[in-house]
């Protein structure tokens, strides 16, 4: 079984993340870059699935600037068998439509049985890529899985919906997205880190993928304005001297909140 896992480098949420006010693009140098935790969990699902289906191969796929090599290697160190890193200056600032097209093209050439993604990245938090990929690939998608089993020809699991959980299943090939209800990724050990250096890491350009991202071909999303939000004005801060609860209720009443 050939399993593709989307892995994404994101600015570390443990620090302040910045957008360039000139371009609206993430300032990658301003904060530490890490592999998004949810994509590490997706990788864990892939590794567990591969272990249960002998003869499987796990490919980590990332569309990211050239500087993201370390993050892609981390996916190899955790256990992916190989990695595909799509790096091309022309993809700087790519919108979701372009991103989905490019990732689908890279995955398609590998003839996948299963594509695994996180449900939402911590930076863009769009949550739309799994469905977009599925449409491009012509696969069913099973999103927001909190439990998942993969057999030789189907994927089944429990998925979160906005109104409660439901059972879901799809024949392979399929695209699935997982939630953080699934286990955290294993930590790369020294052996994994050493082995990662020898694993295949293919770097692809747009030309390699033969994808047309000409903005005249299909509409794209563009940023038209970006501004830093003014810091919230500090409000009232009191120390409880026995009547703070009453004062709070007065505040809520005055502001028509109760």
């Amino acid at each position, binding site marked *: 079984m050939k399993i593709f896992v989307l892995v994404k480098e994101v600015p570390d949420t443990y620090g302040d993340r910045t957008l360039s006010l000139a371009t609206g693009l993430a300032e990658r140098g301003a904060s530490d870059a890490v592999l998004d935790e949810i994509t590490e969990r997706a990788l864990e699902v892939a590794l567990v699935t591969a272990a249960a289906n002998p003869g499987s191969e796990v490919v980590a796929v990332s569309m990211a600037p050239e500087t993201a090599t370390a993050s892609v290697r981390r996916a190899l160190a955790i256990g992916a068998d190989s990695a595909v890193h799509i790096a091309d200056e022309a993809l700087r600032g790519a919108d979701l439509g372009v991103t*989905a097209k490019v990732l689908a093209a890279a995955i398609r050439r590998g003839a996948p049985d299963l594509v695994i993604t996180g449900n939402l990245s911590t930076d863009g938090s769009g949550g*739309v890529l*799994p469905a977009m990929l599925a449409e491009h690939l012509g696969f069913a998608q099973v999103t927001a899985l909190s439990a998942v089993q993969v057999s030789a020809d189907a994927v089944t699991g429990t998925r979160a919906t906005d109104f*409660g959980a439901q059972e879901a299943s*799809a024949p392979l090939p399929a695209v699935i997205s997982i939630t953080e209800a699934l286990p955290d990724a294993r930590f790369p050990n020294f052996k994994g880190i050493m082995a990662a250096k020898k694993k295949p890491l293919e770097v692809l350009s747009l030309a390699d993928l033969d994808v047309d991202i000409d903005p005249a071909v299909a509409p794209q999303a563009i940023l038209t304005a970006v501004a830093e939000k003014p810091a919230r004005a500090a*409000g009232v801060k009191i120390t409880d001297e026995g009547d703070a609860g009453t004062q709070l209720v007065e505040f809520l009443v005055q502001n028509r909140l109760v």
Partner: protein
Amino acid sequence: MSYPADAILVLVDVTPTGDAAPSTAALLGAAAQIGTPVALVAAPAGTAQAAVDAAGSAGAAVVLTADADATALTVPLVDALQAADALVRPDAILVSNSIAGRDAAGRFAARAERALLVDAIGVSRDDEGIVAHHSVYGGAYLTDSAATFGAPVITVRQGAIDARAEAQQAQVEELSVTASGAAAASVGAIEAVEATSSRPDLRGAARVVSGGRGLASKEKFVLVEQLADALGAAVGASRAAVDAGYIPQSHQVGQTGVSVSPQLYIALGISGAIQHRAGMQTAKTIVAINKDGEAPIFDVADFGIVGDLFTVVPQVIEALEARKK
């Protein structure tokens, strides 16, 4: 028939019982700000009359209904969207930024080759067309986005839009949909996780009371629920409270949990790590109660109380109960 020249197509999220999801009023309110709302209710034939009625009450001028198989995931909604889009030729397509909405919006945008603008907290129209407004990186930045051309597909953050449209005597019309035959997952019935809870759902709630590690134990976390009930609020939690097992993960507010934009957010015993603030700082009014006067949550609080929540919160509940009498 003809459709409004400035039509905004709205995909209504339909609940398992055939009602319009709580996001509907805000979606139609947003649509009315930029054009004439046309709602699409896609559900198994004859099961969603309540949603059709709700769409009219919430301001849809036209309600298109489509027979959509509920046992196939997403694809029937996308097929219906495609048919509605071809018929109405809207200036924009608004979809709730819910799990179902994101899937439908993503597949539709990929299929129809439309620009996709996600997680909008507002929409407007300028000389060149429709603009979506976003709050990104946990509310640290405000951005605007637009499509280079064509009608954009926009997912709208739940609970972020206050605008409401006037009720309409909606014209209801059955939409003819050609199935695409695209591969779809099979799904079973949706089992409500908290069928017994009378509390509002966290997503889209107007009021949220959240508890953190300061609650100290699962037993004492009940205090959060009691205050929530006194306010008619939904219950949220910080990651620390979830990790400590006080409450299930589905209640987690923040970067990796649910993002909320309520009118009122009360944080109890929550220090306010950046990941938590990311999910709640677009709340209109923030109240924080914490023993630690240095907690970062106070930086964003409109009303902060440095004190013991176990003495302050019961007093709040008592005062609220007294007001009701």
